[in-house]
Structure formats: C-alpha cells, structure tokens
C-alpha cells in the first residue's frame, strides 16, 4: 500500500514580485517500508520536497496523499496531529531543546504520542538512546554533547515514537563513518521489523548504500528514479 502519493506537486515561492519555482510538478509514490534517498545539487528542491512530504508546507498546486489522507484538506491542527503520530524528523541543525537533557529531549517526543506507561516509556527512551550509542550520556544537556552526539539524540528523538515515516535532512552530516553505520543499522532494523518508511536527503554514499530507492532531483523535478536490491545490507 502506498504511504505517500504526490501528484503534480508544484511549489512557487515569491521573492518580492518574482515567482521562484522550487518544485515544478512532482509525481511520486512511496510504498510503506521503503528506504529512499533524495539527492541532487543545492537548490534543486530536495528540502522543499521533504517539507511537503513532512506536512510542514503546502504545495502551490497538486495533491499529496499521506496514509490515505489528502493533506490539502487538512487544517493546521490536522496537519500537526498527523506529524505528531506519524512522522519523525531529523534536521541537520539538530534543534534540540537546550534546557532538556538527552533523555528528556527524546522523552518529549514520546510523551506527545502518549502511547506508553511511565515504566515502558523510560525503558523505550533508554533503549533507543543505547541503540544510537548514547548509553551513559542520558543526563547530558546538548551543550555537553559533541556535534555527532547531538545528531544522534535528534535521530533517537525521531525514531523513539516508531512513526510510519522518518524524514531526515543530511542525517549523517555530523557523524563519523563508524557512528553513521551504527545509526543506519538502527534505522534498517526499524525498517525491517516495523516497516518504518525512511526518506533521506543526502549526499553521503554510505547512506545511499542502504537505500532501496534513489531519487535524483534537478530543477524541481525528479530526473531519475532508481530502485535497487538491498540484499547486501546486513539484517
């Protein structure tokens, strides 16, 4: 079943009186459980596309269907609800809350979905932090963590609520190759066990290695859509 369908999606920004098209008519179907990367040069429309998929922005024209719901028909509240329960985000700039510890930053996302009791919640948060290699650093605040550690907290925050879709903008940008691999393994595990769909914007060949599908975006259009066997990725 398709988790996401984009039909004729365009996005035009106004810079003063000049219209600047960021997406020129995207047609895309993403199935549940796909591991997709989007790549392309800067300004090609990757981030805009991620924002559209993540229900953060609305298209100028076209239709986006997420999990059977037409996003154009949802109001702000409805879109927020959809993001809350179904989508996890990893941004390049982490955007962690500085007054909260690593544990609390992750706990925050899980509290919002209100799915676990107190004990389960704690176990789940500690588990995901351990999975991304942050065991023992739970009580550190973001200013006490390195860039890579902060990125891992951001990843844990996106994964902890087990969303249907995880969107990540350059998730491995601040990670060394070993950590990057560890984190990707966690994601692959979630992808395989829970059927979580991942869509990444990346230039990192290591991340692309893990993808089922690679979309190249140029000038606001999908210029190449490559599917491939991922049997080389370890289970």
């Amino acid at each position, binding site marked *: 079943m398709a988790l996401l369908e984009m039909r004729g999606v365009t996005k035009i920004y106004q810079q003063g009186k000049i219209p600047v098209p960021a997406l020129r008519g995207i047609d895309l179907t993403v199935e549940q459980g796909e591991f997709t990367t989007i790549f392309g040069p800067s300004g090609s429309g990757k981030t805009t596309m991620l*924002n559209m998929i993540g229900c953060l922005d609305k298209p100028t024209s076209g239709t986006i269907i997420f999990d059977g719901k037409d996003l154009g028909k949802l109001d702000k509240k409805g879109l927020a609800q959809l993001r809350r329960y179904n*989508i996890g985000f990893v941004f390049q700039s982490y*955007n962690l809350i500085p007054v909260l510890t690593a544990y609390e930053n992750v706990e925050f996302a899980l509290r919002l979905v209100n799915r676990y009791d107190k004990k389960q919640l704690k176990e789940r948060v500690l588990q995901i932090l351990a999975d991304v290699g942050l065991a023992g650093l739970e009580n550190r605040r973001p200013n006490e963590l390195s860039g890579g550690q902060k990125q891992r907290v951001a990843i844990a925050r996106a994964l902890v609520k087990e969303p249907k879709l995880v969107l990540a903008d350059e998730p491995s940008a601040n990670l060394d190759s070993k950590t990057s691999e560890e984190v990707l393994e966690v994601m692959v595990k979630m992808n395989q066990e829970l059927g979580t769909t991942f869509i990444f914007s990346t230039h990192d060949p290591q991340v692309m290695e893990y993808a089922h599908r690679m979309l190249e975006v140029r000038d606001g259009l999908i210029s190449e859509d490559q599917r491939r066997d991922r049997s080389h990725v370890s289970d």
Partner: protein
Amino acid sequence: MFLTKLAIKNLWRHRNRTLITSTIIAFAIFYYILLDSMIGGMTQMSYQTLIDYEAGHLQLVNQAYWVEEEELPLENLLVVDEQIISDIEKLKGYRGSSPELNFQALLNNGINELPVIGKGIDPERFDDVFFLEDQYVEGSMFSTGQYQAVIGKRLADLLQLEVGDYITLLVKDKNKTFNTIDVELAGLVHTGNPNVNNNFVYLPLGLVQQALNVDNQVSKVIIRLENAGLAKQAASELRDKVKGIDNRLQVYSWDELEAVAVASAKQAGAQLMLVIILLIAAIAIVNTVILAALERMEEIGMMKAMGLQVKEIVYIFVLESAGIGILGGLIGVILGAIGVWLFNIYGLDFDAWMNVDMASFGIPVIGKMYGVWNPQAFVMVFSFGVLVSLLASIFPAYWAADKDPVKAINHR
C-alpha cells in the same frame, strides 16, 4: 505535565533576563503597595481629622436642615431639651456632646474681607468632643459670655491678624437683616483640617444666638463616642429615641458625611495608579516573550514539526510568563511588606523632609504620616501582577507559535 516542566526549565534558561523582568514587576508591585499604604494612611488621617475637628462621631440634626446644610441656613434649627441630652448621654461609649450654631459671615479686619463659616459653640462642652485644645499656636479658647473668637492661624495670617486684635463679622440674622459681631481674637489654632485652618471662626454660642436672632436654637449637636466603631449602632439607637420626641430629628454617623465620600473617591482614584503599574509589568512581559520567542524560533519550528499544536506552544510561553509574574509578585509583596512595616514604625515627616505644610494643600497631615496595612491590596496587586503577566504573554506567544514551521526552522 511535560510542557509544564519545560516551561519551568525555560524560566531559568536566561536567569538574568528572568530576574530583570521579575524585578520590574516587583518594583511596580512594591511601589503600588507603598502608595496604597500611604493613601490609606492619608484617608485614615483625613477621617480622623474630620472626626476630631469638624464632625465628631454623630450629629443630631433636623432632617430639613441636613438637606440644605451647605447653605448654612438659619431655619429648621433645633432646640436641645433635657430629654434629648439625657438620651444622648445614655448612649453606649458616650464621651461628650457639643451644640453648634453654624452661619455664613464675612470676616473683616478693617481693611480686607473674607467669607468664612461662623461657629457658635459652648466652650465648656466643646473640648469634650473636639481636640482643638492641643492645637493652639497662640492664645487659648475663650470662656462663655466673653466677646472673643478663635480662628485658624492661616486665616489670621491672610488677614494679618494676631491674638488681641479685633475682628468684625458681618452676618445676616434669621430675618435676613444685616448685623455685625465684634470680637477680640482669643486664640489661633493650626490643625490637619484645612477647614479649621482657613474657614472657621469659633465664637461663644450665646453671643451668636443673640446676633442671629435664633433664641436658644442650634444647627446641630455633635456627639463623641469612645471610638468610631460604635457610631453606627449608636446612631441607630439615638435615631429611634429622638424620633419619639420630634420626628423631624435625624441622627447621622460620621461616615455618612459628604466629606467621607469625597475621601473614599480619592482613594478609588488611586486605582488608576494600579492600571499604570500593571501596564509597566505588561510591557516588560511582552518584551521578554518576544525576545525569548525570537531566540527560540528554530526550536518552535522543531516543536511544530514534532506535532505540537499552537495552543501547546502558547501554553509553554504563557506558563513561563506566569512564572515570571509569580516571582516578581512574591519579591514585590515581600519588599512591599517590609516597606509598609518600616513606614508604620518610622512614618514620613513631610514637614521636616520637604519643609512643607501639607495641611495647606488640603492633605490632613501634621507632623508624621504613617501608612496602613491593607492585606487586600497585597492579594489584589499580586493576583493582578500574575494575571497581567499571563495575559500579556498570550499575544506574542501566539505570534511565535503560529509561525509557519518551515520559516521557523530556517529562522536564521
């Protein structure tokens, strides 16, 4: 619950800013409490000077006279018979009573003339009701039957009069015929009551009754009780008794006087100050919330991406502001309590401080002025402080929370 925890943590995120904003609120609250205490003190003193020098606790008067009292008519006067005196003396907490005959007059020193209020009094009974005895700056009270008068020092200065000088009062008697009263100045007084200082001329009652041709009638009988708290009940008690003697008679307690209503209105006017103070607090809060929101814009964007509703983000900011309001309120209330406590112990000496006679401005203060404790003001200003902090933050918080998530995330 988690949002509450986050709001509390955010409160200490920029400690200095939180403390500065709280201090502004605290100062505003402290200032209001002191001001309230001072105005309360002034009002209390004005009530006291009204009772001590002008109105006593109760006034027995003809109902028709009371209605036209401002004109100081010589009609609808009353005759105080023995039955009435006996009823008055039986009142609970009775201290004394003094009849007075009030009239309009022009005071002439031979060169200039000023309109004044003449008061025919019985000097033997006057001191049982009024506390003029200790307020003489020169001379003393006259005795019954003497052709003498007592006036305020300020009025005397205006007309360049001294004790021993002769004054003439031009009056109209009951039949509207002009008459004059010539008396020697026996004493000059200075009180916290501007009427006594500027307008009143005290004369022997018998002399005035004769000059005004009103026989043994008086305008009213002023009664003093042990304390003001007894006035209401005593008024009601005496009212019932005198109605049986003459149903035109009426008894009023001090708090029914027009002057008291004016003093209360002045106190109510002070509430305007509260509005100004709360406005200061509101501006401080709006400023703080906007600064915090701008700083945390990316974080707000992230929260929106995580699915937080606008109202949840607003809740975080509003709670933070309420926290600042509570902190500022507590500091303000504690400082205010210390201020009022010191004010009550040491008082404010306007005479020594500014070398100004406050009574000349109509402010009934002679010597030191003390504040009053008003717990209601503490509770009210604290509650309003917190409420205003909370309300003032809603709009800027909503402005931040309603931002487009993409723009918020890419704020920088």
